[in-house]
């Protein structure tokens, strides 16, 4: 079980795929996804040397910390530990969850890819913190794997209580279908990092997720009143409230949050938010 605060609030999970953006730096592309609203990030590098993966992991750790976003390393618990990542993501053919847990300790997130309900239940029983469910659609990232279709998304969402992330061939065009099947969290790879404008794609996906309303609302206190919201981040909430155009100041749990940090500020259950501005006075 992870100790990282509120990581389960994530809704848009993005995984690196450097071959999707030749000529562009990994860090720059991934920062764009964070700007667009990715709230969970995974480093997947199946071809690089361990040294290269470690360097990338350290750089992405620094980047995600800046945005307050959890960072996961694919496969390598040792690299995850050394880079101070928040956890690892395993495939069905990788090391068992129990072994990864032993290496990482209880404070890290362990996720695992699943293709059927049996795997989902086994993962939950073995102590996985979340599961990936897919590929929902045929995908360029994993061309040899048959699509599990949205039917599995429906089954997985009902079968397990840990977070389920739908993955595989998801784009802004088909995201609605996946959400309609019961998905609350989406993961996309090539549709995002292979795009000319990763931030815009992330934003589009987040809007679709928010519109689907499948997300459990958080209850926060806004200017002294109870306020249920589907927004997970401060910028999103202020936008939803239609207050984005105002010159206002936000104070979250007693601390002023500068406007430049709104997009990086997660709202947790029970948060106390004050939005103030200037009025006439003597």
């Amino acid at each position, binding site marked *: 079980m992870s100790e990282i605060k509120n990581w389960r609030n994530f809704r848009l999970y993005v995984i690196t795929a450097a071959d999707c953006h030749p000529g562009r730096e990994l860090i720059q592309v991934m920062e764009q996804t964070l700007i667009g609203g990715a709230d969970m990030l995974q480093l997947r590098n199946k071809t690089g040397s361990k040294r290269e993966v470690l360097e990338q992991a350290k750089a992405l750790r620094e980047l995600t910390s800046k945005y307050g976003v959890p960072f996961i390393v694919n496969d390598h618990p040792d690299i995850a530990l050394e880079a101070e990542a928040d956890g690892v993501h395993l495939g069905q053919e990788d090391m068992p969850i129990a072994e990864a847990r032993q290496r990482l300790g209880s404070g890290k997130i362990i996720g695992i890819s699943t293709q059927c309900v049996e795997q989902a239940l086994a993962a939950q029983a073995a102590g996985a913190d979340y599961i990936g469910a897919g590929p929902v659609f045929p995908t360029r990232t994993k061309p040899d794997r048959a699509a599990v279709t949205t039917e599995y998304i429906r089954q997985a969402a009902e079968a397990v209580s840990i977070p389920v992330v739908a993955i595989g061939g998801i784009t802004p065009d088909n995201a609605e279908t996946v959400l309609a099947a019961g998905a609350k969290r989406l993961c996309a790879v090539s549709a995002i990092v292979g795009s000319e404008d990763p931030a815009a794609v992330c934003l589009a996906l987040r809007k679709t997720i928010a519109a689907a309303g499948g997300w459990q609302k958080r209850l926060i206190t806004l200017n002294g009143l109870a306020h249920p919201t589907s927004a997970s981040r401060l910028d999103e909430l202020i936008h939803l409230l239609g207050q984005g155009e105002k010159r206002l*100041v936000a104070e979250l749990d007693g601390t002023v949050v500068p406007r430049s940090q709104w997009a990086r500020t997660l709202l947790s259950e029970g948060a106390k938010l004050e939005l103030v501005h200037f009025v006439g006075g003597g």
Partner: protein
Amino acid sequence: MAKHESERLSKQSEPQLPGETRNSSPFSSGPAQASAGQDCLLLGGQRLHSRFLMGTGRFPSPWVLQEALKASGAEVITFAVRRVNMDSVEDDSVLQHVTERQLTYLPNTSGAKTADEAVRIARLARAAGLGNWIKVEISGNPRTLLPDPFETMKATERLAKDGFVVLSYTSDDPILCKRLEEAGAAAVMPGGSPIGTGLGLLNPYNLGLIVEEANVPVIVDAGIGSPKDAAEAMELGAAAVLANTPIAKATDPVAMARAFRLAIEAGRLAKLAGRIPKKRYASASSSESGSLFGASIPPKIPPAEGIAW
């Protein structure tokens, strides 16, 4: 006036004037020396040409506020920090009406009852990116809105340490004003009378003492009812006057803003020009000699000494 400036004016029995930047003593020659062009007020690192600080509350409309601001000549405006109205998506902040002008912003901490609350409001205000001035205003009583001296003291100290330019709204108590100055206030703002009452200066004697003792500008704030109160405050030696309600609630706020501007200039000029001492009995404007009716023996009168005021 700062202590270092008091020496060259030591022959004068006038109260010292904080925040002076005059090139030469206006007391030494004609009134031209006291022209507004040379008479700036240094406050929080700013050189202010206007000694009128205007509040922005309770104006009948944003347009009237804007016009009144123009008429006032004020370079410093105050406002309050409040929760955003969630029911409206339009920007109803006071700032949108005044941002095209070159102004120094002085947010207040009204609504605060404790130093903690005032510090919190000050930090929120500073986060808006409009400078680091703050008017500490901590009310100790909802009916009189009189400032809580203990909490005001604490907040002044903390905010000054935190890098704010602190203007402390306070009771008209000379010792308290001195203590606030020592705690780091950039200016002290004794009230003439409770906020919004228009009762004018209830204790001119105290205000005079405060001015005499101060090494920071004294800005008379609160309770001003009409331009004559503002002029009186300036004649007492105040460095500036802050007013809001008497302008905003006047029948014609724009005209009243101009009246205040003129009164404050007049009061300031009068202070620099040096008024006559008060006497109990008359003294004729023309000499007795050469009177047509030839009274050669002067009337017997008691010694006419100046009355302290």
